[in-house]
């Protein structure tokens, strides 16, 4: 009798779903490589964070109720995003503050919900990584993942397992990239000034790619790099790098 594989629900996130589905497939590949049975709950849309941060609790609550129902009952839930994982793991309890039954269900879910690199490094404790990349990369610590979930050592430990990859830390790798969700759409000039610092710090490392764990940061940093005329520096989600799904040329 073979041991039962853990049943892992994959919550892909709205931005991965709409903008970069390949990251979802990289995540899938990594979870299967880690010997998990992966289920993609149907009808996924969004964790509700945009509404929550806009102050629209009602919409956020509606979405939270749906998401909880979709992702509970599995051995684990894995999410390729620090901000979405943080929204569910940390802030859903605020949305359900007056609902003891929902809080109870969250109590069951929270210990099983993980951001991708945290899951791979600390739960599955993967020894080998399918990815292979030759060259120098730098890593950007996304704010929610870092400060809400403590994601910092995990992606670095995983990148270290890739032969041929050299990780060069940038100055202020933990500083915000300036995305901030709707902030980038309301205070574009301030947002751009902040991302310029991040771009300068990336360039100063000489790395051919910046690796990160969140789509918001990804779109923001890539968008600014390209507008500044940099077509060379790749902006990669850590799932793609770890899964070996990175094109050798520029993205």
């Amino acid at each position, binding site marked *: 009798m073979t041991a039962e594989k853990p049943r892992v629900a994959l919550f892909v996130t709205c931005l991965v779903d709409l903008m970069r589905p390949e990251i979802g497939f990289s995540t899938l590949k990594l979870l299967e490589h880690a010997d998990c049975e992966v289920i993609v709950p149907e009808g996924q849309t969004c964790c509700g964070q945009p509404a*929550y941060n806009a*102050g629209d609790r009602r919409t956020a609550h509606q979405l939270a109720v749906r998401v909880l129902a979709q992702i509970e009952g599995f051995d684990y839930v894995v999410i390729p995003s620090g901000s979405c994982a943080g929204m569910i793991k940390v802030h859903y309890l605020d949305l359900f503050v007056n609902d003891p039954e929902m809080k109870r269900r969250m109590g069951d879910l929270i210990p099983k919900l993980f951001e991708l690199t945290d899951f791979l490094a600390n739960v599955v404790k993967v020894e080998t990584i399918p990815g292979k990349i030759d060259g120098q990369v730098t890593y950007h610590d996304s704010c929610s993942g870092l400060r809400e979930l403590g994601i910092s050592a995990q992606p670095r430990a995983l990148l270290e397992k890739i032969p041929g990859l050299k990780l060069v830390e940038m100055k202020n790798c933990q500083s*915000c990239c300036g995305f901030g969700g*709707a902030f980038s759409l309301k205070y574009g000039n301030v947002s751009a000034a902040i991302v310029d610092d991040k771009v300068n710090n990336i360039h100063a490392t000489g790395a051919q790619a910046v690796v990160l764990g969140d789509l918001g940061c990804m779109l923001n940093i890539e968008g600014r790099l390209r507008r500044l005329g940099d077509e060379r520096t790749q902006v990669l989600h850590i799932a793609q790098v770890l899964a070996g799904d990175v094109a050798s040329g520029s993205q």
Partner: protein
Amino acid sequence: MRVQSMHFQARAGEKLADTRLQKNLKKLAEKFVSARATVMQEIDYEATRQAAVERRNRVLDRLDVWIEIFEQNAKARGATVLFAETPAQASELVVEIAKRHDVKRVTKSKSMVSEEMALNAALEAAGVESVETDLGEYILQINDNEPPSHIIAPVIHKDKEEVSDLFSRVHQKPKLTDIGELTREAREALRPKFLSSDMGVTGGNFLIAETGSVAIVTNEGNEGMCTVMPRVHVAVTGIEKILPTFEDFATMVRLLTRSATGQSISNYISLLTGVRAPGEPDGPDHMYVVLVDGGRSSLLGSEFQEMLRCIRCGACMNHCPVYQKIGGHAYGWVYPGPMGSVLTPSYVGLENALDLPQAATMCGECHVVCPVAIPLPNLLRKLRERQFDRHLRPTAERFLMAAWGFVAVRPNLYALLTTISNRFLRSLGRNKGRIQHLSMVKDWTDFRDLPTPAMKTFRELYADRVARTDSATSGGPR
């Protein structure tokens, strides 16, 4: 201080374009951040912080009791304790005190509450000269009463050259460039004022209830000149600054100086208790403590009560990516940065500071460095909730959020609409895979390319894959 927070957007734009300011802000960001990080290693930050949180919460839980105890003990040592509901009333009280004691000249140590009070203007209107003696505040005063841009380093937005030009113009002296020489020139201008001052006005970092003392934490030496020499001393501060004991104060000081300026301890810490007693060599004949409410009591018992733990260290603004880019003046009132973005709407009205809770990336660094663990991002979000509920956000935004929410809970509708919008956006991107102008998201595309969405969503592609796997595994030999 007049509220200018409604001009945030315009001012932020000006500040970003000010290359001189940008250079000065860059220095601030690097210096204050690294200085704090270095000295914080001297203590157990998390444990000390936890102790500070408990001690501050203890005060706020029964603030009325601790204020009474402070008042009793201060009175027993000859001080008069006065209460002002509004900053304007506090100014009236101070002007009255000045008149009562025939005061012609006031020397002032730095006080942010006195900025809330617009105290200098009130004194000047009553014919009393009020001289700022903190070097930064002095620089601002002689520059046509320019407001401070930081709660600890009021003139951090200026560089040495700007001060050098200003001194030469106002002091009518040859231009100096050496900082030591510039400081000496300021000291020479201020010394006669100190020596002829009738009344010293200061703030109060904390008020110690068990002895009725005012605790003042400074670096420059001007505070002592204002509190020990003049015949009258008035300390103005917020009602939330009470601490029960010196133990509490010791805990706060450990965190305050390290968080504010990266100092293990400041150059001076004064504990001022009452008037000069018979036989004592110095101290004022008369001492007043003016406790200002200014909206603080309205936060007690509310979901914003935690904001009252604030010890005015400035760490949050030093570490804020937004403040680091626009400086303090864009926030438009006394308190800038993250703490200012909570206090300004709370004290001057949400409708007068609509941008402040919104102009944050919610990165969380302010909360990480706050020595009393104020959940600033959560408080900013709660202000956003208030704005949303009170319909203070643009109608288009409310509508879009509601529409998106409606769609997002209906997966089939969501799938249909996102397919359509994805196709539309891809067509805008032509074959380049990116959009460079989209007026609907002008704030994005003015500065960044917008990568176009995927041809097919993950859901569609995954459904395709499942369908392929099913048809591959069903029927037919392998």
